[in-house]
């Protein structure tokens, strides 16, 4: 099932937590939502589930608004624990069994065993990571078509983090949709096909992880003399950002890195290199204000 979010806004008081967000989340895939704290990821998830009333905008599931029948097919793992302190793990499983008609209790217990969770323990006695694991186990036992997972590996050790990623991959392979957020960029990089980067309530970057990596490069060149001119290369539409220090210039290129590299060489740069970026680099460039292209042009004209 695909999810289409158009122009979503959610205002709390005077502050817009989500400010004109549009996203296309395809079905049968894993979608990763990245963003610094306060970017609006959790609010977006809550709006998707009708747990927060949207101020404006639209969220459609296969072209339709969220209906009770669709809601039944969505499993949600919230960022903060929603477990009841006084209830045991198995009582939570029982509660889910009663609440959701496709819920498979044996599957939940199987997953809890994988995570090494003692089902007789009360939620109060569980660590943050164990609480996450309990919520994840219950969500993946729902037989849901859409899984919305807000930090589903929070507090988990690396082994259990990998279990969660494998569960997500399995769902996508079955044709279900997984949307998740994580601050662990390496996980998103591994499991997600599409990503969106949010910052201050907006999407600042989205695409296929593999395409972003193939297209976005750093082109670096060294000039023999501190007095050099970039011949307008920094204004090229494919140059998203330019950083210049003394004799070195580094350009963030959104596509066509080889052509930009040739232009840099033609402008007199030596040691021109095209450097790959991993998702962490791409993410940091997307959310850090840094030196805008315009600033560099100003530097260029003043030198």
């Amino acid at each position, binding site marked *: 099932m695909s999810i289409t979010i158009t122009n979503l806004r959610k205002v709390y008081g005077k502050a817009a937590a989500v400010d004109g967000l549009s996203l296309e989340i395809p079905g049968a895939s894993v979608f990763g939502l990245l963003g610094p704290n306060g970017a609006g990821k959790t609010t977006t998830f809550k709006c998707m589930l009708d747990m927060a009333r949207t101020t404006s905008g639209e969220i459609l599931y296969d072209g339709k608004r969220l209906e009770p029948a669709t809601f039944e097919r969505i499993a949600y793992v919230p960022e903060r624990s929603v477990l009841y302190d006084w209830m045991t793990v198995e009582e939570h499983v029982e509660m889910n069994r009663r609440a959701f008609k496709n819920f498979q209790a044996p599957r939940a217990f199987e997953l809890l065993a994988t995570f090494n969770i003692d089902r007789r323990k009360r939620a109060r006695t569980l660590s943050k990571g164990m609480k996450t694991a309990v919520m994840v186990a219950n969500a993946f036992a729902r037989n849901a078509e859409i899984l919305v997972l807000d930090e589903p590996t929070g507090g988990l050790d690396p082994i259990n983090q990998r279990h969660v990623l494998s569960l997500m991959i399995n769902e996508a392979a079955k044709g279900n949709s997984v949307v998740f957020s994580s601050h662990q960029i390496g996980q998103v990089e591994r499991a997600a096909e599409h990503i969106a980067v949010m910052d201050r309530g907006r999407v600042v970057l989205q695409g296929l*992880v593999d395409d972003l990596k*193939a297209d976005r490069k750093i082109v670096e060149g060294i000039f023999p003399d501190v007095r050099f001119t970039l011949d307008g290369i920094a204004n090229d539409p494919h140059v998203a950002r330019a950083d210049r220090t003394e004799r070195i210039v580094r350009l963030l290129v959104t596509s066509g890195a080889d052509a930009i590299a040739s232009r840099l060489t033609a402008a007199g740069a030596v040691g021109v290199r095209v450097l790959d970026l991993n998702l962490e680099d791409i993410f940091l460039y997307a959310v850090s204000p840094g030196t805008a292209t315009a600033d560099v042009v100003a530097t260029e004209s003043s030198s």
Partner: protein
Amino acid sequence: MPAVLTVDPRSGVPIYLQIIEQIKRSIALGVLQAGEQLPTVKQLAVDLTVNPNTVARAYRDLERDEVIATAPGRGSFVRADGATESPKVAAEIGGDALDVALREAKSVGLSRAEVRELFETALGRWYDDLEK
């Protein structure tokens, strides 16, 4: 299928390209032989913990390059002419590596003659004198 297939998601190289490169390398080295069956998209995705669509993309490109063939309902196989393709694939891998080295040499300002001299020295280190 060799269990040696691994991906490094943290690399700047797209995962689907890493999968393509490794399957080609396995064929070039004879680890994967003509007619040999590849794991299903789902199986490889689960094994590597990467998105199934990413694996599917790698398989599509390998089909387009006529390295593998997919029979509906039966799975994907190294093409029958895969074995004869292996010298070509080996040449491709070697050529790509040389390209990287030459780009680097050029970027630091080495001349053609200097590169040739370095190449001859390196050649002597890795290949017997008798081998032409």
